């Protein structure tokens, strides 16, 4: 009893927040089509009144037909016709209600999808996106996209049925005021049980989110083209299938066990309401026997109770489902509300505009960085400068933190310690989107978009839509013009074979496309991370013959293991153990006979 009381008061205390969430959630799902939603609700109210009228008419018909004073078969016939109408009207309006509901739901799904994409855009750094917890949350939300819009349907279901129930209970109240109260009180425990079951279902879903993601991963690896070659050659189909099944049985047990227990409890509690209904019948029959109630009253009681039991079970289900939809919506709102970049943003009005060309360059001062999940420093007090107008090359062993530096320079992360200065001012004082526009990056693991060749290059521009004329010029610089020459529809050829009619190009050809993407932007700072790893000898040579000209007036950073590429830089920085080991020009460093000279000889010696 005590627990039930606590639950009740707890539910009441949570009510204002629940109402706020409900209003916001309703806005989310009804927002895209407010007039459709209003029409839908009007229709639901109208349809919910009809069962009450129906029960009342049935009582009147029986009373008219009961022999006695003032009974009239003609009036009874007219009433019966009215009764028939209450059956026909819903049949006629129901298709309208259903198509409205489907329309609202589809538009709501689209709206939620759009909100999520916008949230993704607001996440301007990688701090959250690269976190597994965030991926888990995202996985849950993917299911929520389909669950949330049903709030509308379930809320209206609950509302319509509640209106019907109030009318029916009003009729019963005419027989005795205690009858409706007893019936309603007897239904409450089951309502709470169903709500709890809905909550458990949602909880289980968020808990199995990791397992679901692992299942998704296995399915993806086994069916998507990216890994298709290895999966076939190594015969990995069975390996990933076994892993899938293992995760599946875990996920299934998470979802089912607790929820099933609660559904059993809920069904048992249904007996209470049945008892109340039976007790009421005993009372009505006794009163009719004593002549205090008419036969019509008994008809009314039987009809009303039968309807009320059906209606209240529908309310319970709708309420529990609406509650579950609300939980999904709360998850969506959590994600949307937290979709903010974690890197610090300058205050409004105080942000610096990014420069069109650098005056002094970029300076790293004692920069240290550890990844959020990492256990050791990726960078440990790195200091060097990218002088304006110069090409700087960065050399170092795999895993020394070269690509991490690129992420810090583009503010995908901020350093934990130390500072990065751009033209003498801290990077974080610049307006973020402007800063990003001023930097062109060719990543080592560049994206291969399922777009046309032209679009694959144009996406690198400040304004991709207006880069058309530039595309073909920069393609020539990167050697991507040759790729276009080979393709059936030139620059308009669809790349990747993801969609019908697309073509795949080779790894080296993709790299040329990625390079052109980097050149299409008129950037102050150009960063190339392993730009020539897959290029053939001719293409690499031609690129570096042109590179000087391309970089005129810009500042460039090149990361490479190819010393043919590295040696032409104005300044070379050697990174080791998270720190700068040595720096200078190629001539200085080879004369010095240090690590750089040793590495250069390792590569050059194999050509002698």
């Amino acid at each position: 009893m005590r627990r039930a009381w606590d639950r009740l008061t707890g539910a009441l205390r949570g009510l204002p927040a629940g109402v706020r969430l409900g209003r916001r959630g309703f806005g989310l799902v009804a927002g895209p089509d407010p007039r459709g939603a209003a029409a839908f609700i009007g229709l639901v109210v109208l349809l919910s009144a009809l069962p009450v009228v129906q029960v009342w008419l049935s009582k009147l018909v029986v009373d008219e037909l009961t022999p006695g004073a003032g009974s009239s078969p003609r009036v009874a016939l007219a009433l019966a016709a009215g009764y028939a109408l209450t059956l026909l009207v819903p049949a006629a309006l129901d298709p309208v209600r259903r198509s409205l509901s489907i329309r609202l739901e589809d538009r709501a799904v689209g709206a939620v999808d759009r909100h999520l994409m916008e949230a993704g855009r607001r996440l301007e750094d990688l701090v959250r996106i690269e976190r597994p917890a965030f991926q888990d949350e995202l996985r849950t939300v993917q299911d929520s996209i389909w669950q949330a819009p049903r709030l509308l349907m379930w809320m209206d279901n609950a509302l319509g049925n509640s209106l019907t129930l109030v009318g029916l209970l009003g009729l019963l109240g005419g027989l005795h005021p205690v009858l409706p109260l007893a019936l309603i009180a007897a239904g409450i425990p089951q309502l709470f049980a169903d709500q709890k079951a809905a909550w458990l279902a949602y909880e289980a879903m968020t808990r199995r989110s990791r397992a679901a993601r692992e299942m998704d991963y296995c399915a993806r690896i086994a069916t998507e083209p990216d890994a298709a070659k290895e999966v076939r050659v190594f015969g990995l189909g069975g390996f990933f299938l076994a892993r899938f099944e293992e995760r599946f049985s875990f996920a299934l047990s998470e979802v089912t066990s607790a929820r099933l227990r609660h559904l059993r409890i809920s069904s048992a509690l249904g007996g209470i309401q049945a008892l109340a209904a039976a007790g009421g019948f005993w009372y009505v029959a006794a009163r009719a026997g004593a002549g205090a109630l008419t036969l019509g009253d008994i008809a009314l009681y039987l009809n009303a109770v039968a309807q009320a039991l059906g209606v209240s079970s529908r309310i319970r289900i709708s309420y529990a489902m609406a509650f579950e939809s609300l939980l999904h919506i709360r998850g969506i709102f959590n994600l949307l509300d937290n979709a903010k970049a974690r890197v610090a943003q300058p205050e409004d009005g105080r942000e610096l505009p990014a420069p069109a060309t650098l005056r002094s360059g970029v300076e790293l001062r004692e920069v240290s960085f550890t990844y959020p999940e990492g256990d050791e420093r990726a960078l440990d007090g790195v200091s060097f400068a990218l002088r304006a107008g110069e090409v700087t090359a960065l050399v170092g062993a795999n895993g020394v933190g070269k690509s991490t530096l690129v992420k810090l320079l583009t503010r995908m992360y901020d350093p934990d310690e130390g500072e990065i200065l751009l033209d003498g001012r801290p990077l974080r004082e610049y307006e973020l989107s402007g800063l990003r526009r001023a930097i062109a990056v060719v990543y080592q693991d560049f994206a291969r978009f399922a777009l046309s060749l032209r679009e694959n290059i144009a996406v690198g521009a400040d304004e991709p839509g207006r880069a058309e004329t530039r595309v073909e010029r920069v393609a020539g610089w990167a050697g991507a013009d040759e790729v276009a020459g080979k393709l059936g529809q030139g620059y308009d050829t669809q790349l990747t074979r993801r969609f019908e009619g697309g073509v795949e190009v080779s790894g080296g050809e993709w790299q040329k496309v990625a390079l052109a993407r980097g050149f299409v932007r008129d950037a102050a700072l150009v960063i190339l991370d392993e730009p020539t790893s897959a290029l053939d000898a001719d293409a690499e040579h031609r690129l570096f013959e042109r590179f000087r000209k391309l970089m005129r007036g810009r500042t460039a950073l090149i990361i490479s293991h190819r010393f043919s590429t590295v040696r032409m830089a104005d300044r070379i920085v050697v990174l080791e153990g998270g720190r700068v080991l040595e720096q200078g020009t190629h001539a200085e460093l080879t004369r010095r006979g240090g690590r750089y000279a040793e590495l250069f000889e390792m590569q050059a010696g194999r050509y002698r």
Partner: protein
Amino acid sequence: MLQGTLAMLSFDIGFLPMVLHFLPSLFRVLEAPPDLPVSPSPHPAPGRYAGALLAFEDVEFSYPGADRPVLLGVSFEMRPGEGLALVGRNGAGKTTIVKLLLRLYDPTAGRITLDGVDLREYDLEDLRREMGVIFQDFVRYELTAGENIGVGDVRVLTNEWRLLEAAHQGGAAELVATLPEGLGTQLGREFGGRELSGGEWQKLALARAVEQPAQVLVLDEPTAALDVQTEYDVYTRFYDLTRNRTTLLISHRFSTVRMADRILYLEGGRVREEGGHEELMARDGEYARLYRLQASQYLDEAAEGEG
């Protein structure tokens, strides 16, 4: 009440046509036959390719839906235990040759034979078991480090000694030693594992390729992302790695290519030049030109300082 029940029933029945409509396409996918023709009486792959010769005989190939062929009649042989290098410009069809060799596609004309028998006659699984490979776009599995190596041959997934040996050969031994849980360390960011750099992933992929007890080893740009020291170490051990195996190496680094027993220069869908490094240099063709072009970037001392 009956009315409500009927409404629910019609609602449920309303779904039926949709489900029935969707089922055929589902079954079409689920019951799809294998794309490659299966031989009715497959040969087992030869246990030892002693004397077994892999040969491309006038092989032509176009990708489905492509408007022009990639290969226009490629012919060459791979002798047992031989190291063969394949060079050519980006898009020349080098990786396509690898795909045909592994029977990920079949030639549109011509044939590939093993021991004089068409590859299509062999049991596919058997054939692939004898081929180890590292692709240019190798997969970064969101699994443990050990599994990343072991998926090359799932039979050794639990054989720690074998996995460590492979890590050593692929230049990944040091990397594995620095991982917090060694071979058991979960990798990749998706499930909260340790994220590796591009070159570190490649070391594991290389370990995965050499871990396979295969007679043919296919290496498609195996060291493109490796740092200088690791690349140097790998090629110093190259003879160990490829001993007793027929090796096909694809690379744009001529310092590596020159080590091969035989080099094929591919252009315009055909093999244009073929021979050992010295032979091709003496011939003074495209190969020689490209070799000198690249070597000059390292050796031309006059270039120094000019940059």
